[in-house]
């Protein structure tokens, strides 16, 4: 549950945000330009000290979807047990989002993972490298337009025969 006082304070600071609620969890939809200020306010003014997850959804071919990617930040306040979900929608050429590593150290690997599998860049990230896939991989496989069986990456290895080993 999110404290109604927190929601009221957030509404006052950022009047343009859209709020919704599902099963007691509050969700805030934020335009891309306001991601960093909103998260900074939540961290510094409202004590959301724990970044639970940064993840992404690809809405390609999704019914009634207007935007390609939905970026999701799950936050928690470890003192009051409040939780809040911050979402933003991005599209492909301008999909870069400001990094929040300066707010939560834990965002480092989470943002690297989102970059790795969805190809969304985080500006200001100290070390935006692939984290799960091999470094020579060029695609972002959790995008819905990437074929399930890949583009031949799994066959691209030297063959060791009996005579050579």
């Amino acid at each position, binding site marked *: 549950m999110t404290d109604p006082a927190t929601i009221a304070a957030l509404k006052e600071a950022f009047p343009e945000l859209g709020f919704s609620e599902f099963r007691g969890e509050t969700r805030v939809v934020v335009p891309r330009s306001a991601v960093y200020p909103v998260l900074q306010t939540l961290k510094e003014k409202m004590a959301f000290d724990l970044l639970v997850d940064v993840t992404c959804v690809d809405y390609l071919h999704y019914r009634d979807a207007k935007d390609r990617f939905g970026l999701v930040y799950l936050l928690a306040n470890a003192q009051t047990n409040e939780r809040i979900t911050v979402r933003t929608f991005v599209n492909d050429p301008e999909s870069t989002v400001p990094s929040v590593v300066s707010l939560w150290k834990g965002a480092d690997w989470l943002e690297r993972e989102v970059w790795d599998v969805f190809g969304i860049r985080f500006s200001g990230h100290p070390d935006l490298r692939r984290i799960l896939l091999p470094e020579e991989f060029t695609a972002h496989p959790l995008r819905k337009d990437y074929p399930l069986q890949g583009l031949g990456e799994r*066959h691209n*290895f030297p063959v060791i025969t009996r*005579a050579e080993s």
Partner: protein
Amino acid sequence: MAVDLPDNVVVTKLDELVSWCRKHSLWPMPFATACCGIELMATGASRHDLARFGAEVFRFSPRQCDLMIVAGRVVMKMLPVLQRIWLQMHEPKWCISMGACASTGGVFDTYCVVQGIDRFLPVDMYVPGCPPRPEQLIQAIIDLQEKIQREGTMFGREFTAPERQKAKLALREEGRMRDEG
């Protein structure tokens, strides 16, 4: 020419004697990456007791092993590791591909899972199953022992026989064509 031998002397070929020694002291390298690894452990444990076949000494250093048991799916990040471990093992060495995933990729027909380790490594025995029962793995080890006895040579000529290489390479090429076409 008749030679009188005492009763406690046996005459055989050196190749056969060496193979007989080798087949009863296989030292497995447990390359266990998934649930097949659990069955592999069960095979080594007391109920199924791999020691009965002289293959109970699992070693985690490839330098001390001569039988690699690949138990589980191999992803593209793991394959270079697998190949390096195989190259680090001393000869003569054999390879068992245990389970559907190691042999064919199994249900994991996805971008990152290697579709059968035999595309990139020599394999001597395939064990079907998902995962195979310990009895199946034991059968594979018995079959491998027979194979070692049947065709093993002291200096490993059976590994470099050109006709064997040709057949395997043709099979591999066929798989690649099917994949690309």
